[in-house]
Every structure is written in C-alpha cells, then in structure tokens.
C-alpha cells in the first residue's frame, strides 16, 4: 500500500477529537489517537498551552515552539486558539463539540461546569458526545479538588512506600511516567466509551482518576494490595545495602538479572559451573527458591560480570536463555542496535526545515498503521482551516475573533 493510501486507511481515520486539556495526560491521550489517524484538534488558550513552556527545549533555546514535551505530544494534531472563558469563546467551543466524537479535558471537576461547559451542556448540543475527564482523584469524593503531582500519585496509591531502601525515605519513579500512563488509560477508556456510544447512540462521561489507575496498576501495586487483603502483609522497603538486588555491576555498566525460578541452573551453565548443581543449596527446586541460594549464586556471578563489558554479559545471559536487560541511560538507549535496526527514532521535520528526532510508535498495527503525518502545530496554525473549514466562518469573522482576543 502506498503511503498516501495508508494515511486514509488508518484505524481511526473516522474519529474527530477535541483536545481542550492543559496537562500531559490529556495530550498523551489524544496523541496516541492522532498517531493512528484520528483528526485531533488541539484548542489552546491564546497565550499557548502550558505544556509549551515545560523544559527541556530543543537546542536549549526556550520558545513556544521548541519544548520537547509539547513537540512530542502534539504531532499529528491540528492546532487552534480559543479562549472559552469568554461568552463568544464558549459558543465556539460548543459548536466544535457538535462536530466532534470525543472531547478530552484535564481541569479540576468544578471548572467546566462553572463555565457552563459541563457534560450535561455538551450532551444537549451533541447527544452522542464522549467527554473524557482526566483528574487527580476523580470527579467525586473528599479529595476531588485536591492538587497533586507525579510523586503524589505514587505516594497515595501504595507503591512509593515500598520503593527505595528501608533505612531511607521512600523514593519516586522517573519523570511523568504515571501521567503518561494516565493518558494511555484515558485513550483506552475513551475508545471503550465510543464503542458503547456507537452501539447505543448515547454519549458518555468518562471519569478517569489518576489515583485509582495507579492503585489498580499491575506495576506490583494491585498485587500487593490483594496480598494485603489475603494476609494483612504490608510490603515495605527492603534493605540491600550489602547487595542482593537485581542490578549487577559489569565492567562498564549494569545488567539487570531479576531472577525467576530457572535462573540458577541457567546461570551456572553460563558460568561454566554446572557441577555446582549437586550442592545442597542448588540441588532441588525448593532449595533454589531460598534467599541463601541466591546469595551464594550472586557471589559466583558478580566477579564474572565485573570482568566483562555489559554488552558481552547481556549476550551471554541471553544465550543461556536468562531473563535479563542492560540498565541504559539515554545515551546508551539511543545507540542500542535493536532500537536502531527497527527504526524506532523517527525524524520529524517542520516546514522551516528544522528537524528533531523523537521516540516513535508504541505499537504497530499492520492494518490501519501508525504514521507521522505532520509536526506539532504552531500556536493557532490551523485557525483558518478549522474555523473556516469546519465551522464555516468567513475571513472577516475570523479576524474579528482574533481582534477581540477569543482566538
């Protein structure tokens, strides 16, 4: 199939989405839909979306167009400006709602209703609309207006207490991981709601609570919560100052060898020490599951790893069918041969010729594929196209809207 045909035959070519969100989870949600063909209209305030000002910036030159977050999150979207806190802006937003299948927002639960733009109002204008609201703690409940941040989601869902050393403070995850996850989860629930809407002809308000999606996350959190329900056991932080973790030092880097039940026989094979399988600590499955046998095994493994570069150790471990992975930083990751061979880092080019490389597809659909159709919009880039093309305004009307500051 030629590329031109492919673009008209993406999985979501028949879906129109209005993104009025102001935070990472909302933009991630609509990004993944846009990547698979949805027509996503990003409606920014005339001052620009707040994510435009999150650093880092391309070539470290701060501007409304060079923030890497904004650029990555808004590929494949069309951009307009709209101040829907004004009476005219509110009217325009509701006209756009009439032309959309899905609206995504990230305001606190009271914000849109206070502007006369709540779900009920949207539904009156478009009975089949799906409104997806991504919030810190959900639309209802005692914490519904609470402020939060990445680390707070982690803290209040249970796993942070079990992350880090017992002798130290609990420690958070890397930057914005939970917010990206919330975005994908919102896209999933939006698609589920749209499927129901298509069958029944009624809209939906999707209530996505980041605290809940983290408390129900299989990153261990949900399993540990169930373990608590089964036994009363509270998982805390561990003490492995003396070693015993899954990350092992090699000559020039680190290899993660988080073990499963088959690690020791496979590992002894890799080390050329299969004769040690006869030892009491290794000879039965039951013995091999004991912490002492892992300590003994680590004492054999660690000196072997210290003598070898991580690439060699990784290949040897995988050759012995041992579950493993190098611990990369961004320099090592972007140089990794598997990512490169699979062309994971596409280059996105702007009309001014400026190029930037970024992460590519999260998954590939061989029918209705992922495609990079256009770079993230400049502020208000598609105002004429959308207010003129979709809502049918004349050039004069559009310039009046501009003059009064609505767009």
């Amino acid at each position: 199939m030629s590329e031109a045909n492919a673009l008209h035959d993406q999985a979501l070519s028949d879906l129109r989405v209005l993104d009025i969100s102001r935070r990472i989870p909302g933009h991630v949600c609509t990004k993944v839909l846009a990547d698979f063909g949805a027509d996503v209209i990003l409606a920014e305030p005339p001052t620009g979306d707040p994510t435009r000002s999150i650093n880092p910036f391309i070539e470290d030159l701060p501007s409304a167009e060079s923030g890497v977050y904004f650029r990555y999150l808004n590929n494949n979207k069309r951009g307009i400006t709209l101040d829907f806190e004004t009476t005219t802006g509110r009217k325009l937003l509701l006209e756009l709602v009439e032309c959309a299948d899905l609206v995504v927002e990230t305001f606190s639960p009271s914000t849109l209703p206070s502007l006369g733009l709540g779900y009920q109002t949207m539904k009156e204008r478009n009975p089949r609309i799906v409104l997806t609201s991504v919030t810190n703690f959900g639309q209802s409940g005692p914490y519904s207006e609470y402020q939060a941040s990445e680390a707070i989601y982690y803290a209040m869902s249970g796993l942070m207490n079990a992350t880090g050393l017992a002798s130290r403070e609990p420690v958070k995850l890397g930057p914005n991981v939970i917010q990206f996850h919330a975005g994908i989860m919102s896209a999933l629930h939006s698609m589920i709601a749209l499927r129901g809407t298509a069958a029944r002809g009624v809209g939906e308000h999707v209530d996505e609570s980041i605290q809940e999606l983290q408390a129900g996350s299989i990153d261990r959190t949900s399993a540990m919560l169930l373990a608590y329900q089964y036994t009363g056991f509270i998982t805390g932080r561990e003490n492995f100052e003396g070693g015993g973790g899954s990350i092992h030092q090699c000559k020039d880097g680190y290899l993660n060898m988080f073990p499963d039940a088959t690690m020791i026989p496979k590992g002894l094979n890799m080390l050329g020490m299969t004769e040690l399988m006869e030892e009491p600590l290794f000879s039965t499955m039951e013995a091999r599951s004991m912490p002492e046998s892992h300590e003994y095994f680590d004492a054999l493994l660690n000196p072997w790893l210290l003598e070898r570069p991580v690439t060699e150790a990784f290949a040897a471990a995988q050759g012995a069918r041992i579950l493993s992975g190098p611990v990369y930083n961004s320099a090592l990751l972007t140089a990794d041969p598997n990512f490169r061979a699979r062309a994971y880092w596409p280059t996105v080019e702007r009309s001014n010729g400026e190029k930037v490389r970024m992460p590519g597809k999260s998954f590939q659909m061989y029918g209705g594929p992922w495609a990079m159709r256009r770079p993230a919009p400049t502020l208000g880039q598609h105002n004429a196209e959308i207010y003129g093309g979709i809502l049918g305004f004349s050039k004069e009307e559009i310039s009046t809207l501009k003059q009064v500051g609505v767009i």
Partner: protein
Amino acid sequence: MGTTKLPLEGIRVLDITLVWAGPYATQMLADWGAEVIRLEPIDHFQPMARGQRARVSKAEITADTDWHNAYPDWDPTDMPWNRTPSFNVHARNKKSMTVNLGAPGGQEVFQRLFHVADVLIENNVPTTADKLGISYERARKINPGFIMVRMPGFGLQGPYRTYRTLGSHIDGVSGHASLRGYPELGLEFQTDIFYSDAAGGINCALAVLMALRYRQRTGKGQMIELAQVENFTSYISDVNMDRLANGRVQRTLGNRHRTMVPHGCYPCRGDDEWVVIAVENEEQWDALCRAMGNPNWTADRKFASYISRYEHQNELDALILDWTRTFNKGEVMRMLQRVGVPSGQVSNHAEVSRDPQLRYRNFFQWVDMPGTGKHEYPSIIGRLSETPNAIRTPPPRLGEHNEYVYKQLLGYTDSEYWQFEEMGHIGDAYHAHVE
C-alpha cells in the same frame, strides 16, 4: 448492576499470556465485557503465570513471608495455583480452560478455538510462540476479521528477537531505572519496578479497541505488534529527546524535580511516616509559608526567589522537615491542600485500603472465590457515566471452564471430552510431576 450491555460484550478473546503485561491487557478487555478465555497448559508450569511455582509447601511460605507468597492465611494448600494474589488480581472476569498446545491433540483444539474467537493476545518470546502454533496467517485463513496482538519484549524482528525479559529488565533497557532512585547511590541499590507491564498491558488493550473500530468500518482484521521495550520507552520521551536534540544525559534526581522547588518526601511524626510536597509556583510557595506560620527563615533572601530557592534546596528541605516532623502525615497533607499546595501522604497498603477517597468511590469490591475465600479486590479502573460496571465473576480456578469451552463452545462430545481428559489436556491440577 443494571441491564446496560458492556461495550465489549460479544467479543471473544483467546489469552495465551503470562506474567503481567499480557494478563493486564486481557484484564482490561474482560473488565469491559469481553469473554476472555485463558489457555493454560497443565503438563508444565508457565513461569510466573499462577505464582512462582506449581507446588509450594506451607513451611516454605512461612519461612519467606512476602507479597508474592501471600496465599490467603499463608496457606498455599494443595492447589496454590488458585490462590496466588499475583494471578488472582488480574484474572477476575476471565475464564480458564486447560490445553497443552505442544502435546498431541492440543493443536486440534487450538484450531477450533480460532473459529469461535475474535482476538488472540500473547506475550511469549517469538520462538516460543512459533512452537505453540501462534501465527496470524493461520488465524486469518480461518477468519479474515481476526485480530492478533503479539507483544514480545524486543519485537518480532531485530537482533534481539529471541531475547527474554520481564518488566524489571525492561525498566532498565528503557532508561527508566537510571532516572529513579537515590542520586548519591549506585544503580545496584534500586528497587525492581514493573511499570512496563502495566504500560504494555493497557497499550495492548488500546490497540485491540482501535482494531475493533477499524474492523467495524472495513470488515478487516489485523496483526498488531507491540515490542514492550519500545512501548515503555515512549513514556519517557522527553529525556531521550533531550539526548537526541541537546546531547544531554539526564540522571536521577531522587525526590527532587527538574523545575518544582521545594519538591520532596519529608518525614512526619511517628516511625516511617512521610509526606510528599510539590510546589509548582510562587503562589503555592507563599501558601506553604503561610501554612507553616511564616517562620522567620522564610523571609531569608536565600529563599526570596525561585532561582535562589533552587540553589539552596538542601537548606530549604532541612527547614521544611523540621516543620513536617511535628505533625502526622495526614495533618500535613490536609493543612497544605486546604491552602492549595500539592501534597500527599505516603500511604502503605493498609492505608491505601482504607483511603477515604478510594472508599468514597468504592474502589474496592468484595469477591468470593470458591476455595480461596471472600476478600476485597481493587475493582474496575475508569468510570463511564452511562455504563455502570463492577467485577462480575471471581478469578477462575485452573480449568474451571473446561466443560463450557470444550463442549458448548467447541462442540466436542462427552466421549471426545473424556479422551482429551485421558490425554492429559483437561484437568483442574498440574500433572503430578510438575514442580
């Protein structure tokens, strides 16, 4: 529960997944109405599917009380595979059939399953999947609308296609492990994190929903490939773009933040009690000072501007923790939230289980699983205003739905069913030799 149809009712999913990434995908689909059938072997134990090992003794468990050994009342019984939290947490609303795909007769059953299903999801190493007869071409010939998702660690093609990983390894490969943990300690002091399992799971479920929409429009099914290392790498895009565009290699900041200050995890009254505070702007900084009673030090010019606060974070954190440690963590959170400062207590699993917000929204749901007992489970994620939802059926016991699948769905007669039983495909326990 009302009579509203769940959006995925009528979609049948074959689930050949293990550990967590695949099972989390099928949890999402089952939760919203799909009929998910797990195909489980009983002639060997799938690593980390229904616990660490098939058979474990109570003595062993008592010697190593940990969350992954947390069988109800610390008792694995003679059927531990039905009682393990790491399986039961994702398996609600799913069905279980047993079949040994690698043994004689297994492929015949598999062939019939392709005829009655819409979707297949697997997260095995590509070489293992090949051996099990998992192939999109095979499915497409039987059913052109068939949707298959394959989610190996490193992809179906590429130099690492035969490589084996779990979430913990993917956390390292994606670069995430180098961006968390204490800045002054080496990477070997990291806690294992399995976030990529959650990420792979929901992206896979999303891909299925997209493919179903495409199928509704075009009548066509398709093959989807999700390489878990690539999928999770997209969650930390900014750090990699900073490398690609600016040549910078970011490292862990611990509990600090690239732009927010103060930002940290501070001790509170009591033993191992902590609160997170994250100040985003000047207004919140002023509010924090007011909440602390505007002590003199807040007027120090060292803390007068954002830049100078950033430069004096060590001193600032020491002064803030002098204040936090005189209160309970819940008190600090409420005092700060009242004045609009983002803060949250670090809750342990007991505290999450009684969290007032989660309780208000009925996040936990009682589920009675025969042989395992009645417990509260984390319930459905996400609320749809017009489609009430809740856990419908408990996690399936091994082979619980054999009769339904073999006879009702696949049309095998009683005597054929008995033959499959004789051949060792059908049972409610692993074969006696399986450890």
